[in-house]
C-alpha cells in the first residue's frame, strides 16, 4: 500500500495522464468559453450601437405580409408567430408528400437498376447518375423556370391526362365533390388497418402454436380494400367530381397546386429518389445469393423468399441510410426560399428582413430543424433496437 502511494506521489502531475486530462479539458473549456464570451460581448455592443432590441417579443407583433399558400387560416393581420407556424406547416407538408413520393420512386428505380433487362437497368443507372450529379438548387430553379418560361397560360393549358391541366399558374386537377361518405370511408380504412394489425398478430401466434399458416396477405388486402369500398357503396356511392374550369385568367374549382410547390416537390423528389435508388439497390445486393438459393431449396415460393428471407435482411441495411435521406429531403426543402415557396426558412427570412431580428430568426430556423432531426434520430434508434440482429 505505502509503496503505491509513494509512487503516486512521486509522479509529477504533467506525467500523470488522468490529471493531465483534467488540465487539458479545463484549458479547452476556457478557450471555448473565452471565444463565446468575446463573440457575445461584441454582439451585445453592436446591437446596442445599432439600437436593436433583443428577445422574442417581435413574435406577437403584426406580421403585415401575405403568405402565398397556407394550410391554416392566415392573413397579413396575424402575428409573426402565426406566420412562422404557417411556414412550419408548409415545410412539413412538402416534406411529407416528398418523402412518400421519393420512397416510391426510389424503390422503383432501385429495383429497375437490378433488372435483368439491360435497357431498363441502363436507363435506371443513367437516371441515378444524372440526377445525383446536378445540384438540387439548380434543379429546383430549372423546374420553376419550366413553369414560368415554357408552360402556356391557363387559356392554352396542357392536358396530359383528361381532367388534369398544366399551365404557368400551376397544376390543376379534379377532386371528388365533398360528400359525407368520404369521412366514413376514411374511418373504414383506419378500422381495416387495425383489423389487419390484429389479424397478423393472431396469425403469427397461431402459426407458432400449431404450425398452420394463415393467408394474411390476401385476407389483409381484401379487408383493406373491401371495408372502404363497402362503406362507399352503403353511403350512396357518390361519383360527382369537382373539375377545374377555366374562368377569366385562371382555373377555378378542382385542386390547384401552385407552381412553386410543384417545382419544389418535383426537384426534391427527383433528386432524393436518385440517392434512395442507390440505397435500395445496395441493400438488396448486400443479401448474398446463397440466401435466395437456400430459401428456394427449402421450398419457399418466390414471394415467400422475398418476404421472409430477403426483405427482413435488406431492410436492416436500407432503413438507416434511408432515414438520413428523408432528413436530407426535409433540410433541402429549405431551398424553397430560392423559388419563393413560403416554407419555414422563407417566412423566417422575410421576418428577419422586416424586423431586423437576425439572431432570433436564425436561431428559430436552427431550433426547428434540430427538432426535426432529433425526432428522426429518435425514430432511428427505436427502429435499430427493434430490428437489431439477436445473436444467440
Amino acid at each position, binding site marked *: 500500500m505505502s509503496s503505491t502511494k509513494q509512487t503516486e506521489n512521486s509522479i509529477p502531475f504533467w506525467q500523470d495522464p488522468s490529471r493531465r486530462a483534467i488540465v487539458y479539458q479545463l484549458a479547452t473549456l476556457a478557450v471555448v468559453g473565452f471565444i463565446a464570451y468575446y463573440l457575445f460581448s*461584441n454582439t451585445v455592443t453592436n446591437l446596442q450601437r445599432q439600437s436593436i432590441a433583443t428577445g422574442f417579443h417581435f413574435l406577437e407583433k403584426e406580421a403585415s405580409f401575405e403568405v402565398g399558400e397556407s394550410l391554416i387560416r392566415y392573413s397579413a393581420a396575424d402575428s409573426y408567430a402565426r406566420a412562422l407556424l404557417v411556414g412550419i406547416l408548409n415545410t412539413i407538408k412538402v416534406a411529407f408528400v416528398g418523402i412518400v413520393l421519393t420512397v416510391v420512386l426510389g424503390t422503383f428505380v432501385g429495383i429497375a437498376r437490378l433488372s435483368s433487362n439491360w435497357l431498363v437497368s441502363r436507363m435506371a443507372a443513367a437516371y441515378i447518375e444524372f440526377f445525383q450529379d446536378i445540384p438540387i438548387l439548380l434543379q429546383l430553379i430549372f423546374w420553376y423556370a419550366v413553369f414560368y418560361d415554357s408552360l402556356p397560360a391557363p387559356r392554352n393549358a396542357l392536358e396530359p391526362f383528361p381532367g388534369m391541366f398544366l399551365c404557368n399558374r400551376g397544376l390543376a386537377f379534379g377532386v371528388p365533390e365533398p360528400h359525407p361518405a368520404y369521412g366514413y370511408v376514411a374511418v373504414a380504412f383506419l378500422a381495416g388497418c387495425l383489423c389487419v394489425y390484429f389479424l397478423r398478430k393472431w396469425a403469427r401466434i397461431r402459426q407458432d402454436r400449431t404450425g398452420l399458416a394463415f393467408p394474411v396477405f390476401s385476407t389483409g388486402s381484401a379487408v383493406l380494400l373491401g371495408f372502404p369500398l363497402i362503406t362507399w357503396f352503403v353511403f350512396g356511392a357518390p361519383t360527382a367530381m369537382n373539375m377545374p374550369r377555366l374562368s377569366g385568367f385562371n382555373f377555378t374549382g378542382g385542386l390547384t397546386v401552385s407552381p412553386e410547390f410543384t417545382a419544389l416537390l418535383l426537384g426534391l423528389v427527383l433528386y432524393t429518389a436518385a440517392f434512395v435508388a442507390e440505397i435500395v439497390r445496395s441493400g438488396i445486393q448486400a443479401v448474398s445469393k446463397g440466401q435466395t438459393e437456400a430459401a428456394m431449396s427449402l421450398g419457399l415460393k418466390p414471394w415467400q423468399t422475398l418476404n421472409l428471407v430477403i426483405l427482413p435482411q435488406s431492410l436492416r441495411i436500407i432503413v438507416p441510410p434511408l432515414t438520413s435521406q428523408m432528413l436530407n429531403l426535409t433540410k433541402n426543402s429549405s431551398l424553397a426560399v430560392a423559388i419563393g415557396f413560403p416554407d419555414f426558412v422563407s417566412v423566417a427570412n422575410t421576418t428577419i428582413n422586416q424586423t431586423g431580428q*437576425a439572431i432570433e430568426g436564425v436561431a428559430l*430556423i436552427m431550433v426547428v430543424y*434540430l427538432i426535426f432531426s432529433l425526432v428522426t434520430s429518435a425514430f432511428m434508434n427505436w427502429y435499430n433496437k427493434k430490428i437489431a440482429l439477436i445473436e444467440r
Partner: protein
Amino acid sequence: MTQPSNLSSPAQIDDIRPPLTSIGVIGWIKSNLFNGLFNSVLTLVTFFFLCKIVPPLIRWIFIDSLWSSTSTECRSASGACWSIISANYRFILFGFFPYELQWRPLSAMILLIGLLLISRHRRMWSKTLFYAWTAGLFFMAVLMKGGIFGLAPVESTQWGGLPLTFLLAVFGLAAAYPLGVLLALGRRSRMPAIKLLSIIYIEMIRGVPLVSLLFMSAVIFPLFLPEGLTINKILRAQAAIIMFTAAYIAEVVRGGLQGIAKGQYEAAESLGLNYVQTMRLIILPQALKIVIPPSVSILISAFKDTSLVVIIGLYDILKTTQTTLANPSWMGFSREAFFFLSCIYFVCCYTMSNYSRKLEKEL
C-alpha cells in the same frame, strides 16, 4: 476395341458451335432484352418511350438549334438557342471580374484542374504533392486577388462565376479537413468535456440545413466582430461552408478511426508512443487512407452545395446565369442556359464520383 479409342481421342470430335441464336448480337439481345414475357414487354415499352423522346430532343439540341445568332433570330427558331451561351459565356463563367483581366481566373482554374489531374494517380501521393498543393492554392489566391507581383488588385466583390464555385469548394474542403480530423479525434476522446463539445458541434451542424448557416454568415457574423472590423461576404460564406463541411468530414474520419484495429493502438502504446505520436504516426495515416473515397464524395457535395451561396446573393455560376436570363433580350431561354449549367456540374461531379469508385476498388 478400336472403337472406344476413337471416341476418346479429342482430334476426332468437332466442337459443336452453340446455336446462332445464343451467341453474338442475337444471343446478347435475347438474353438481355427478351428473356421472358415480362422483360420483352418492358423492353418494348421502354423502347417506345425512347423513340418518342430522343429524336425530338436531338432535333432540338443539334439540328434546329442556333449556335451564334442574335436573340431576335433565336425567338423565331424552333430549336435550342445556344447563342445565349456563346454571347454571354464570359459573363457566365467569370461574373464581374474585369474583362481584360479574366485570363487570371482562367489560369487559376487551369492550375487547379492540373493539380487535381496530377493527384489522381496514387503513386504521386507524397510530401512533394502536398507542397505543390499548398503552393498551388497560394498562387490561385494571388491570381484572383492580385496586388503583388505587379498584378492589378481585384476586389473580391468582383469575383464570380465558375472560379468562385471552385474556390469555395476547394478552399472549403482544404480548410475543413484539419478541423474535421480534430473534431473526429475529439469525439473519440476519453476526456468527457472534449468529447461532449465535439458531439454538440457535429450533431448541431449536421442537424441544420446549410442555408441557415449561410444566413448566419450573412447577417450574424458581422455582429460578432468588434466595431470597425468587417470581413467581406465571400469570406463569411466560405467560413460557413467550412463550418458545415467540417462536421461531415468529422463523421467520415470517425468511421475511418473506428475501422482501425485495437491492436494498432495497443502496439503504439507498448512502443511508448504518446497520444500525439500514436495518432500522427500510426492511426491517422491508416485511417485517412481508408476514408479517401468518402472524402471525395464530400468534395462532390461541397461542390454542389456551393451553389447555395446564390441565396445570400453571391455571384457564383448559377447567379451569373440567372443574371444573364434577367437581361430582357435573353429572357425566356432558361432551358438552354440551365442545360449548359447542368452539363458543367455533371461533368465535374461525374468525373469525381467515377474516380472515387475507381479508388474504392483499388484501396
